[in-house]
């Protein structure tokens, strides 16, 4: 099995805004070539962390290390290898999309050719509109121009903060395809923050859940989501009798007003249903949610 190189590690990151403790010792590790999802409710600290990663904010404590050797104090050595979109991309509205890219290109130490800019315009599907003023662009077009801007320096890491915010469904799908392409076709490492579980689920290889400034869970998305354990919610004609029957199957059941709640493996649900129907219990409703969804919902509700 191939061990992937750690491209970014964050250790004990803390940030205060006045007395507000935004990050409380955050730890993360991102491997090369993966799409890493940073999931958390609004206000969890995702944007603060991302702003620290790109040098917009200075942390009060903790370390950030890129490529296993570059610390925050030498961030300018790492930034030529990083591209980013922080929240929604912003441009000079009075300049064309192409000229905006030319302006951004001048901030890099090595010259970025016209050919490269034209290639990127084509990659993000803005060919034909590149000479129009950005003020005439739709939100989706700006988002794609943002990706082109983040790709100018052919970075190894692309950091995207809530990239689908404000996009219509078509824009979301297009952007999602583009992000997956960046990883698969161009081998980029993508760090993607979002407050939408399904978004991370569909794109990310690994993920971390951040809540109230701490990382509460981190791991491989498929492992986290492939767990068969589900939370079942059941409504039957006779709750106390059904509860006893399910408990005899070895499950710990909790009765909540009109429902029974218990945890089980996905494969066990038909057996439970069979047992209840055999005993003439009428099943009015049966829902199941994966643990991660419940976990995340609990976080977002907090």
């Amino acid at each position, binding site marked *: 099995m191939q061990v992937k190189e750690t491209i970014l590690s964050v250790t004990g990151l803390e940030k205060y*805004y006045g007395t507000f403790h935004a990050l409380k010792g955050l730890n993360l590790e991102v491997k090369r070539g993966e799409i890493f999802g940073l999931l958390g409710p609004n206000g969890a600290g995702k944007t603060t962390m991302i*702003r620290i990663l*790109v*040098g*917009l*904010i*200075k942390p009060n404590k903790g370390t950030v290390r890129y490529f296993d050797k570059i610390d925050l104090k030498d961030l*300018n*050595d790492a*930034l*030529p290898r*990083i591209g*980013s979109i*922080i*929240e*929604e*991309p*912003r*441009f*000079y*509205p*009075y*300049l064309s999309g192409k*000229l905006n890219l*030319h*302006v*951004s290109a*001048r*901030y*890099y*130490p090595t*010259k970025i050719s016209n050919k490269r800019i034209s290639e990127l315009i084509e990659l993000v599907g803005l060919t034909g509109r590149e000479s129009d003023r950005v003020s005439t662009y739709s939100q989706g077009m700006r988002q794609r121009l943002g990706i082109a*801007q983040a790709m100018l320096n052919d970075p190894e890491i692309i950091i995207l903060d809530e990239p689908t915010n404000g996009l219509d469904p078509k824009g979301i799908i297009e952007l999602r395809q583009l992000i997956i392409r960046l990883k698969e076709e161009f081998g980029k490492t993508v760090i993607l923050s979002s407050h939408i579980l399904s978004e991370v689920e569909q794109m990310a290889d690994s993920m971390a859940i951040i809540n109230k400034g701490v990382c509460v869970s981190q791991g491989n998305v498929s492992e986290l989501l492939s767990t068969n354990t589900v939370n079942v919610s059941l409504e039957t004609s006779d709750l106390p009798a059904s509860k006893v029957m399910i408990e005899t199957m070895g499950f710990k059941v909790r009765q909540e007003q009109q429902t029974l709640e218990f945890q089980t493996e996905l494969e066990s649900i038909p057996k439970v249903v069979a047992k209840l129907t055999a005993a003439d219990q009428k099943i009015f409703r049966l829902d199941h949610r994966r643990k991660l969804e419940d976990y995340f919902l609990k976080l977002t509700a907090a």
Partner: protein
Amino acid sequence: MRRILEAEIIKAFTRPRSYIGMGSIIALVALIDASFYFTGKEYIDLLFQNFDQVFSLEGTVVNGNLICFIILQTLIIQLPLLVALVTGDLISGEAAMGTLRYSLTKPISRFKFISAKWITAMLYSLGILLLLGVFAYGLSLVIFGPGDLLVLNADGLVVIRDAELFCRFMAAFVFAFISLTTVASLSLMLSAFSNNSVGPIVLTMVVIIVFTVISSFEMSFFDPIMPFLFTNHMGLWRRLFSDPIPTAEIVQSAGILVLHSLVFFGITQYHFKNKDIIE
């Protein structure tokens, strides 16, 4: 640094706002030239009516040099405001637009970023002055022709020969440039402290107006703060049209203005280096 400066220049000089000041200058100079062309004699007669009994004036009093001097006197107060309109927006305007965070995620030091902004502010000030020079001096000379300059100042009426005037005007433009760089540095500093576009521009205008008003009060109450009001030194360009020219006084004032610019630049750098970009 050169490439960063190029980016800043493109951003500043492609912005429509940058041309409001330039357009105003062209319009004002054209209006003043036109008014002198048609009614200049009446104005001069009115101006010199008290001297009629003392001496008589021969030659062309209304000439390009006089018009340029009058334009300078009129516009030199407004020029800093026109400059602040652009320079006060260089950082805060980007913060408000959200583009600041994009520039700063690129591999450039904040010192170089602010230095490029500052140089851009200086270039804009220079552009405004060059435009004023071309229109106020060049155009007025073309329309009204050369001639000796009559200047009425605190020492009385001074006549300056045409041959000396080019150098004096050039020196006046250099001094005005130094003054404008001070205002540009002040507005850039205020811009670094703000995340909205209008605040630093308004604040720069308020500082200039308040300082100028205080300077105009010749009361001992204000004496302790007078040396710290940079606006006091900005008006020294007029002394370049005295006879003899008080060189030491002018150089001292220019030095004080440069010092102010450097202090404002230093504060901007220090503040911006440690600023969290959270907008």
